């Protein structure tokens, strides 16, 4: 019985994963993750042999999987080399140039672990403004994005913002006897386009592999700012803003339906500020009509968790 158990166990460990390797770049280009740097053979320590065999055809587990073989037949490099030689003989005349074969010539093609095409991303996030050291805005928002392809998406975002003053705001008032002219941002919304040109993976403490990607965003939207009156006896006024935006973001894949996103966006707009000689324009409408304008780059850092619908996906190509 012990011998039988041992034989069974040995069979399970030695058995092939099943399924041929198929297209070298199956899964939308995951192969290039290792193809560019020939020689590094990577593996996911979490993908057990048994589970890998079961998931070979249909989009498997959440982990990165590795093709450890090319079919039921045992790989034989010398046989392949011989076959290549025969083909050369039938096609070409003349001397055959043999290329030395080493482990560097073995390319492991890892399927892309996360597909986004025809999926919707729900991205609640928090954000904070980065480039104004007098007033800081904290934002709570969300974004819906639909992926037309695996690298291109269209989405809608919106956020609500609150503000607080920073140390230089008080310093300027107290030390230089000047009251800064500031606007607060109330809300903004935009139509965005996302493009994903960069993807990669990294190992954490040489144990756990995490895949990630970087994507760029460009969009156009509207928002509202509100003048903070230097003298509170005067009323403030609001501005309706046209806000193009550009951004760069990173996405880390945790599960088939869950990612962590961080990013930086630059909202570019022309804002209207309280006129310097406010005493001349006591009402909000007068002050707005004589407001000072300036081009603003409002750079925000955002972080959040994305939920993906449908919650799973299927590969459409062979491994």
């Amino acid at each position, binding site marked *: 019985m012990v011998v039988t158990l041992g034989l069974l166990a040995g069979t399970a460990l030695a058995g092939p994963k099943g399924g041929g390797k198929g297209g070298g770049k199956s899964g939308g280009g995951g192969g290039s*993750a290792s193809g*560019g740097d020939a020689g590094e053979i990577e593996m996911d320590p979490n993908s057990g042999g048994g589970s890998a065999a079961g998931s070979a055809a249909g989009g498997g587990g959440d982990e990165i999987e590795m093709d450890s073989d090319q079919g039921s037949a045992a790989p034989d490099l010398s046989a392949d080399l011989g076959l290549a030689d025969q083909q050369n003989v039938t096609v070409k005349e003349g001397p055959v140039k043999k290329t030395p074969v080493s482990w560097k010539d073995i390319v492991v093609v890892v399927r892309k672990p996360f597909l986004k095409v025809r999926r919707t991303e729900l991205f609640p996030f928090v954000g904070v403004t980065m480039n104004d050291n007098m007033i800081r805005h904290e934002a709570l928002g969300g974004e819906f994005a639909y992926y037309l392809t695996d690298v291109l998406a269209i989405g809608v975002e919106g956020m609500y913002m609150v503000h607080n003053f920073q140390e230089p705001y008080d310093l300027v008032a107290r030390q*230089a*006897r000047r009251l800064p002219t500031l606007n607060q941002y109330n809300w903004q919304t935009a139509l965005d386009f996302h493009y994903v040109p960069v*993807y990669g*993976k990294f190992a954490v403490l040489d144990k756990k592999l995490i895949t990630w990607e970087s994507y760029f965003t460009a969009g156009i939207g509207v928002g509202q700012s509100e003048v903070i009156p230097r003298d509170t006896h005067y009323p403030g006024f609001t501005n309706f803003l046209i806000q193009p935006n550009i951004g760069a973001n990173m996405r880390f894949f945790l599960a088939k339906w869950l990612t962590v996103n961080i990013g930086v966006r630059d909202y570019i707009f022309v804002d209207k500020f309280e006129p310097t000689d406010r005493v001349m324009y006591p009402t909000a409408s007068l002050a707005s009509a004589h407001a000072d304008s300036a081009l603003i780059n409002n750079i925000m850092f955002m972080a959040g968790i994305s939920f993906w619908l449908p919650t799973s996906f299927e590969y459409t190509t062979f491994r």
Partner: protein
Amino acid sequence: MMTKNYVLAALLGLSLAGTAGADPASVSGGRRLNSLHSDVAVRHRRLLVKHRFEATPLFESTINADFQHTVGGGLKLEYHLSDMLSIGVIGVYGTSLHTSLVDKLLTGPAALPNAPDMRQPSQEQFLDHLNAMPIHGAAYVSLTPWYGKLAAFSSAFVAFDFYFQGGVSFASLTGNCPNNICSDMAPGQPRPNPMGGENLPPDNDPNNDPPLNTGGRVGLYLAGGIHVFLNDFLALDLTVRDYAFSDNPSGADFNADRFVGTNSKTGEDDNRFLNHLFFGAGVAIMFPTTVKRTP
């Protein structure tokens, strides 16, 4: 018969125990795992930093400085003790540029007056109280817990790693406030009466006090960055650094006690522990220029 059953049961138990003991990693929570379970994440990996010396000429600039931007160039020297741990030093020489806040206080409708007016500082008083940071640097320990590679546009493939640093920062702060501007030799103290008799009360004017924001500083250093390897020995090095130490960049009264210096009653000082954020970009050169690989 009973003895035989006991022997068989004992043998079975021993064999199972032996199996479990022979490969404890093969079963985890009832799930069968293969030998990859306990393996490293990446085999045949290029050891791009281990036991290598890194020299990085770099450019650095402040992020969101209040009054004076510091931009400059420097050098980072680092030795990687292992794949994840390294030690190094960094030194930067920089020059100062006015921020837009200072520009607004010097020109335009909100400009400061040319001569002191009430409690407003003059432009000269304001500028002469600002300090500069011509030299700064740090000695640190660096941890590189993440490494990986990325594909850009499915055509360019590069290796990268993320690192985090912590250590001791140092900085040399300079200023130039001449005696005719910073004329109060005893800020916050009663003044001698030139006519004789009792001392006069403090002038309560911080704009003529010495700024007390120059000299050497030692503090905390924190940083995080990324190496993007262009080849086996060259890498783009992008870092955000925080040199945190005691400072009073404006050189003016911060704690509202109407003079610059330490308040003997409250113990508060206008210098306070401040973060000085910098962004740095450099090209790291690794020595030796060839790399080894893991098994």
